[in-house]
């Protein structure tokens, strides 16, 4: 049974509070070849609801998902728009392939907004049922614009052909309760619950810039509304600023052909073959079905890549305390565990029977999804908290409060280092001793974010703003810059990149900020040495970010692409070719053709071309918002090398050897500081050289701006795109 019971009286009270502020009736269109053919526009300021056509240009140029999101948002905002401006939107879309049930990882939604952390456009992908059900309810995307006066719910009822803005004074704000309430309130009978999905945040999103969105999916086998997170960039903060408690979609008619694909037979054959591959290969590869993404914690620790103590180090002797077995006791591993139908990769992990030790729900026994690797690494290892129970508790509270576990973990690790360095003291922190390893202090910071009080609110502003605040306490701004793990205002996700130049740029050049979903090249680069030259790295930094972008255009999860491989992948292919997993790329070619009927799409290169269009458009979008140039691709030095003598000495043998082999100097007789600075000069120069090479490969000028020739070749030389580029390049071609 669910850990949150919603009584009949509670349901009646919630319903009684609903007041219809606006209503829009429509005839749900039949989805055709992956598209509903229209998007939904909701304005909360003036209670306007409308359907907008999705035309052929949108499909051809922007494909769907993140592409649609970006196009709709581009047209909604101007260069002066801030995250809290009324015209800013939360835009959510699946994509043409999204919602098929036969292939693993086909239920993703992509959310886009102007970010409270970066000030520019951010995208975040997420599982759960909302995106696919929204499409089957009749809309390829939803735009939520404006600011409501009162707390509201937006209901999209695809069964009835009805969209409503409902005043919702009684509902919970925190997501673990709200998702159950939405399922209970809008299902006429229990069987309808699986056709309901909500998007919500929580009270933490009200008080921080790192609010996440929770997307629900109702697990009929476990009778729980489970949550997946669009974590990055503070989109939950935007949603709460709009006074939205939930976006709710209802669609009860899901079948295996709801997407009305052009060629169901090929989809069935491709999907069944992939299910079989996972059945045979996952148990001898990554065991995603058993452990989820947290299997990575051991691997990263083994390879000195696990962030420890604010990315100072890449491993720790206590790391085994947060490896998968420490969470297994809470996991119910029985049967399917995917966040969309047919995902046999099944990396979602469900913990039941966990009793909370802190916070407003202290003493309650709850259920929670996860924890993912990023959460374990960010809140556990990076903050030095080798306590699986504390990590799981923080996971629950981050989710229900609507706080991104990655930004939370990375921001807190930064604050902890500042505390240990004496930049902060207990007077500033309100009495909290923010030492690495203090799980109770970590939880208290989190609850302060939920309550909107204390030093937690400062941490919740994110690292970029903390750097400014801490500099006012007299800290050295350069030191704060060096150890503050953010680029563009977004906190790093959880990989140490010091020994991978390619991944330093993978993070630094990422469109939204340092998130690994755009590029993850550490093993290819630092462990396997498969991309040794600048040109090799630049090629990888072209191909992989473009390829990974493609998943977001189509409503897909990246994991089934390369978290399992065909048995012969490494014998048929080698190096970067093997890393592309060509057989799986071909699966995606087949899926796209079979859903959309587009016979002009014949190869993986055709898929990458779709991404190039959207990726470059997003880069120009950054430019439009006042960013998107080389200075915004600069990285904190800690992501490139040791900032302190302490760090240098922790891996002195490695660094000394590099000075001899790579820099060409003999370190004997040099002080640690001298050696560290010599290494720094070398590594910073390497980064700049790589950035030059990547810009050239991508068709950008040396300030990181797509050239007019590039946008023309991609067919996105719309007048306003050209205008933005010209304004930043003095009209140069």
């Amino acid at each position, binding site marked *: 049974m669910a850990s949150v019971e919603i009584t009949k009286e509670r349901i009646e009270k919630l319903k009684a509070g609903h007041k219809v502020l606006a209503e829009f009736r429509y005839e749900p269109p039949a989805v055709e070849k992956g598209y509903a053919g229209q998007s939904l526009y909701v304005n909360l300021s003036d209670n306007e609801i409308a359907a907008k056509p999705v035309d052929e240009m949108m499909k051809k140029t922007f494909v769907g998902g993140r592409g649609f999101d970006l196009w709709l948002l581009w047209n909604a905002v101007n260069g002066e728009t801030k995250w809290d401006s009324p015209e800013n939107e939360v835009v959510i879309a699946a994509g043409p392939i999204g919602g098929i*049930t*036969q292939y693993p990882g086909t239920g993703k939604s992509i959310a886009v907004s102007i970010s409270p952390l970066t000030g520019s456009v951010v995208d975040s992908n997420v599982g759960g049922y909302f995106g696919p059900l929204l499409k089957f309810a009749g809309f390829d995307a939803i735009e939520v614009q404006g600011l409501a006066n009162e707390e509201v719910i937006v209901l999209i009822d695809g069964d009835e052909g009805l969209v409503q803005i409902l005043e919702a004074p009684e509902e919970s704000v925190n997501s673990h309760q709200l998702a159950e309430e939405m399922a209970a309130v809008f299902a006429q009978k229990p069987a309808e619950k*699986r056709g309901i999905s909500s998007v919500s945040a929580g009270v933490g999103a009200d008080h921080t810039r790192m609010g996440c969105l929770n997307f629900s999916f109702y697990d*009929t*086998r476990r009778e729980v509304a489970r949550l997946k997170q669009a974590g990055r960039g503070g989109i939950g903060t935007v949603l709460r600023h709009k006074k939205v408690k939930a976006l709710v979609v209802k669609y009860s008619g*899901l*079948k*295996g*052909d709801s997407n009305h694909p052009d060629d*169901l*037979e090929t989809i*069935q054959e491709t*999907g*069944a*073959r*992939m*299910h*079989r*591959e*996972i*059945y045979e290969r996952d148990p001898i590869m990554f065991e995603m079905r058993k452990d989820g993404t947290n299997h990575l914690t051991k691997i990263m620790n083994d390879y000195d890549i696990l962030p420890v103590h604010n990315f100072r180090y890449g491993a720790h002797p206590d790391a085994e305390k947060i490896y998968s077995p420490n969470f297994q006791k809470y996991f119910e591993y*029985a*049967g*399917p565990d*995917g966040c969309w*139908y*047919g995902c*046999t990769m099944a990396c979602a992990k469900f913990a039941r029977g966990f009793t909370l030790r802190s916070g407003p729900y202290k003493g309650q026994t709850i259920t929670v999804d996860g924890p993912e690797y990023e959460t374990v690494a960010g809140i556990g290892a990076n903050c030095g908290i080798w306590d699986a129970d504390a990590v799981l508790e923080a996971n629950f509270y981050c989710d229900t409060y609507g706080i991104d576990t990655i930004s939370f973990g990375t921001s807190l690790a930064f604050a902890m280092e500042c505390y240990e360095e004496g930049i902060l003291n207990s007077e500033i922190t309100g009495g909290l001793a923010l030492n690495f390893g203090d799980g109770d202090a970590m939880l208290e910071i989190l609850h302060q974010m939920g309550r909107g009080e204390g030093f937690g609110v400062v941490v919740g502003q994110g690292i970029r703003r903390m750097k400014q605040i801490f500099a006012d306490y007299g800290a050295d701004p350069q030191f704060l810059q060096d150890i503050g793990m953010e680029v563009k205002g977004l906190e790093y996700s959880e990989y140490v990149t010091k020994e991978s130049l390619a991944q330093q740029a993978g993070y630094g050049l990422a469109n939204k900020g340092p998130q690994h979903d755009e590029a993850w090249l550490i093993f290819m680069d630092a462990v396997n040495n498969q991309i040794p030259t600048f040109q090799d790295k630049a090629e990888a930094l072209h191909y992989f970010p473009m390829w990974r972008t493609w998943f977001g255009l189509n409503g897909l999860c990246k994991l089934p692409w390369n978290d399992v491989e065909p048995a012969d992948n490494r014998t048929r292919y080698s190096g970067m070719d093997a890393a592309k997993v060509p057989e799986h790329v071909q699966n995606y070619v087949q899926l796209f053709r079979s859903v959309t009927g587009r016979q002009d799409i014949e190869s993986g290169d055709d898929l990458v071309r779709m991404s190039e269009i959207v990726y470059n458009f997003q880069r120009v979008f950054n430019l439009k918002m006042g960013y998107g140039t080389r200075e915004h691709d600069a990285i904190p030095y800690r992501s490139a090398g040791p900032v302190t003598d302490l760090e240098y000495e922790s891996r002195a043998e490695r660094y000394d050897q590099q000075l001899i082999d790579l820099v060409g100097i003999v370190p004997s007789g040099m002080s640690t500081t001298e050696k560290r600075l010599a290494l720094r000069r070398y590594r910073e120069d390497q980064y700049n050289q790589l950035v030059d090479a990547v810009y050239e490969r991508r068709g950008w000028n040396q300030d990181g701006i797509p050239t007019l020739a590039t946008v023309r070749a991609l067919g996105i030389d719309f007048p306003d795109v050209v205008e933005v580029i010209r304004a930043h390049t003095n009209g140069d071609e």
Partner: protein
Amino acid sequence: MKVLVTNEEPCIGCHLCEDVCSQAWYKEINRGLSSIRITSLGNAEWALAVCSQCGECVDICPTGALYRDKAGVVRLKKQECVGCLSCVGFCPNGTMYFHDDYVEPFKCISCGLCAKECPTGAITIELLPD
């Protein structure tokens, strides 16, 4: 547990069981729609593939559409099925099938019609301990 039990030795590869099965459940003679599959191994030897009612598919189904009935037979509630074919990929014996004319997969439900028609007794319905 009611199970269709196969015995390769007497099978003569007449495929009558396949025809009976597809005719019974899909009203057409189409071996691609049969829940029992007969494959030639050469030298007049045949492989018979049919569901063992092991129930692995019940555990993999995300919607609870697959269930075991009172006779121990694993059956599919089509109205609950979303056609994901997870059960096809995860069937240990490869005896959950699909056909592009239909969204839902299909399997042997031990109805015994094929056993009745089999001319050599290569397939029989038996009651096995659960």
